[in-house]
Every structure is written in structure tokens, then in C-alpha cells.
């Protein structure tokens, strides 16, 4: 009986989460036109979209906190996950109504603030999930404009950004410097919480 109730509860939770994820909302594509071609448009899109830029930087910061080996793995894995998500996004027509970006902020901010030592495989999974989700949104936004070249620009900038930021954080030796990094993580998490609130209020 108890197992039946648990299974029902799991099914209902999965159904609610799936419904929230796939409920279509209006597309809020925001394209940046640099006038220098689709690759630069993609780079501009990433650099001028805080919804994407802050989670990417946060992931790089967390990779730096985790050390050399996870950092190296993420350096290659994360941009490719983003690219994959982008290609999936090219085939989609609607943006899920679920505040995915806000949860990226919250999750990555908490990981940094707590300096949580996730196992490498879990961390790689988190990076893949973040990359695919944000790439998916980018794919929807970019398919009408810069297309796959724009995605390529994003991928290259992600590689460079992750390399620089993760290496910088990795090089921080004084304890106070790592604490400063963790404080900024708490700020990112705080922004995520506020974004969830704005989402439910309809002002995201």
C-alpha cells in the first residue's frame, strides 16, 4: 500500500513537472545584431544576455573551485552540451514556461556558496544539463537569425570564458579570495530566488 502511494506520488510529481516544462509560452527571442556576421552575433548574444552569461560564468567559477581535473573536463564538455542543446532548440517551436534560467542561477549559486564537493560524474551531469537547457533556449532564439554559425560563436566564447574564469579561480590561493568567490555565489543564488518570484508574478 505504502509503495503504491509512493509510486502514485512520484508519477504525479513527474506529471506536474513535465506539464510545467512543456507548457508553451510566448517566444521571447532577443537577437543581437553586431553587423559583423552570424558568428559575432552569437558571441554578442551570449555576452549581452545575463540570463545565459551569469550561469555560464558561475559554472566556470564552480569548475575552478573544484580543481584541475573537473575544470579541464568541463572546458570541453560544457560548450559541446550547449551546442547540442542549441541544435535541439532549432527543432523546437515553443519556449517552456518553467523558469529554467532562474533555477540555473539558484543551483549554481548554491553550489558555489556552499563550495559543495560534488563527485566528478555528478558535476559533469550538472554542466551537461545547464549547457543543454541554455543551448536549447539559444537555439530557439537564434534559428531565425544567425543560426548554427551563431551557435558556433557562442560555443567558442564559452570555451574561452570557462578557460579564463576557471583558471583564475583555480589560481586563487588565499583563503579570503575563495571566500569572496563563495560570497558572489550567494549573490547569484539570491538573484535566482528573486527571478523565481518575478516569474510567478509574471514580471520576469
Amino acid at each position: 500500500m505504502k509503495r503504491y502511494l509512493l509510486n502514485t506520488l512520484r508519477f504525479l510529481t513527474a506529471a506536474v513537472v513535465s506539464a510545467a516544462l512543456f507548457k508553451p509560452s510566448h517566444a521571447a527571442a532577443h537577437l543581437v545584431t553586431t553587423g559583423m556576421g552570424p558568428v559575432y552575433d552569437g558571441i554578442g548574444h551570449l555576452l549581452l544576455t545575463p540570463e545565459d552569461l551569469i550561469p555560464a560564468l558561475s559554472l566556470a567559477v564552480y569548475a575552478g573551485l573544484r580543481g584541475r581535473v573537473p575544470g579541464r573536463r568541463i572546458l570541453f564538455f560544457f560548450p559541446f552540451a550547449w551546442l547540442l542543446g542549441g541544435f535541439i532548440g532549432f527543432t523546437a517551436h515553443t519556449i517552456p514556461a518553467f523558469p529554467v534560467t532562474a533555477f540555473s542561477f539558484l543551483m549554481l549559486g548554491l553550489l558555489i556558496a556552499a563550495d559543495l564537493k560534488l563527485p566528478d560524474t555528478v558535476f559533469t551531469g550538472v554542466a551537461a544539463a545547464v549547457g543543454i537547457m541554455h543551448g536549447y533556449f539559444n537555439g530557439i532564439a537564434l534559428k531565425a537569425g544567425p543560426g548554427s554559425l551563431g551557435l558556433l560563436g557562442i560555443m567558442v566564447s564559452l570555451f574561452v570564458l570557462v578557460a579564463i574564469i576557471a583558471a583564475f579561480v583555480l589560481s586563487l590561493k588565499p583563503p579570503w579570495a575563495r571566500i569572496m568567490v563563495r560570497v558572489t555565489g550567494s549573490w547569484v543564488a539570491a538573484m535566482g530566488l528573486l527571478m523565481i518570484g518575478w516569474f510567478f508574478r509574471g514580471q520576469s
Partner: protein
Amino acid sequence: MCFLVLAVYLLWAPSAQAHVEQGQAVGFITGLEHPWSGLDHVLAMIAVGLWGAQLGNPALWVLPVTFPMVMSLGAMMGLLGIPLPGIEIGIAVSAILLGAMVLGEVKPKFYIAAVMVGFFAVFHGHAHGTELPPGQSGLLYSMGFVIATGVLHGIGIIIGLIHRWPVGKLALRGAGAFIAAMGFFFLWQAVA
């Protein structure tokens, strides 16, 4: 040569890129300005930093980490329409108690300090985090708001570094007395 390159770059005619986007940057600036606009909020934030500096590690950084996160939770409650009674009184009491802690150099266990700071942060978040002007970006407002709050804590911590010197210790306790007194003033305004 550099000037020539710069001149060519500046005079190069780019293609027209009409891109009207209202309220985005304004949202960030509004969020950045908002915590500075109320003396009650400013004093409480600085008091958190001052108290953290008196308490030393780990409270020095745990308090400024706790406050913005719990404050955002309070703001989220406000955004979801969850009512919180006595907000103004809570903010005034936060200034009184935090000022009193600085005045008395009270040193409880750091988690007790974190719970206390977190409790009052809910009131500050509920009161200030939800005041986004229409048409502005919620994300950018949130970014500005959280960054400004963090900067206020930082100012408090930097001022609190005078705690190393005997005269500085005394000055810090004086600052605590001032904050507590202002708290009583805010309380009087809230209940009057």
C-alpha cells in the same frame, strides 16, 4: 599610428542597428539604487557588516552570505503574495537589535548570529525586493538589488576593520549605539 587606427574605427560607418529596448539597463540601475534609498535598510546592512567584523571568522563572511539569500527569500514571499505582518516594525527592530549587538560587542555562536540576521533579512526582502517599477527587467533589478546589498555589507565590514585598534573598538560601539538609536526612531515612526 594608434590614433589613426582609433580615428578610422570611430569614423567607420556601421550599418544601422535600430534596436529599441526600454527598461533593461534602467532596471539594473533601479535595483542598484533601491537599497540606498531607505536609511533603515542602509543602517541594517552596514550593521550586519560591522557585527561580522567584530565577530571575526567565520561570521565575518557567513553573515553577509546569509543576509542576501534570506532577503531574497523574503522578497520571493512578497512576490508570491504571501503576507508578512509588521514589516516596518521588523525592519526597525532589526536596526535596534543589530545596533545593540555592535554596541555591546555581543559574541554569540556564529550560527545563532546567522539565524538572527536571516530572520530580519526576511523583513528587508519583503519590503524592498518587490518594488520593481513597471516595464523594467526583473532579472536586472534583482542583480542591482543584490549587488548593492552586498556592497553595503562590504562597506560595513571595511569600516568594522577599525576594530583592531582600541580607539576603533570604541568608535565601532558608538556606531552601534547610533544605529540602535535610529532603530528606535524608525520604530516610533512605524507605530505612530
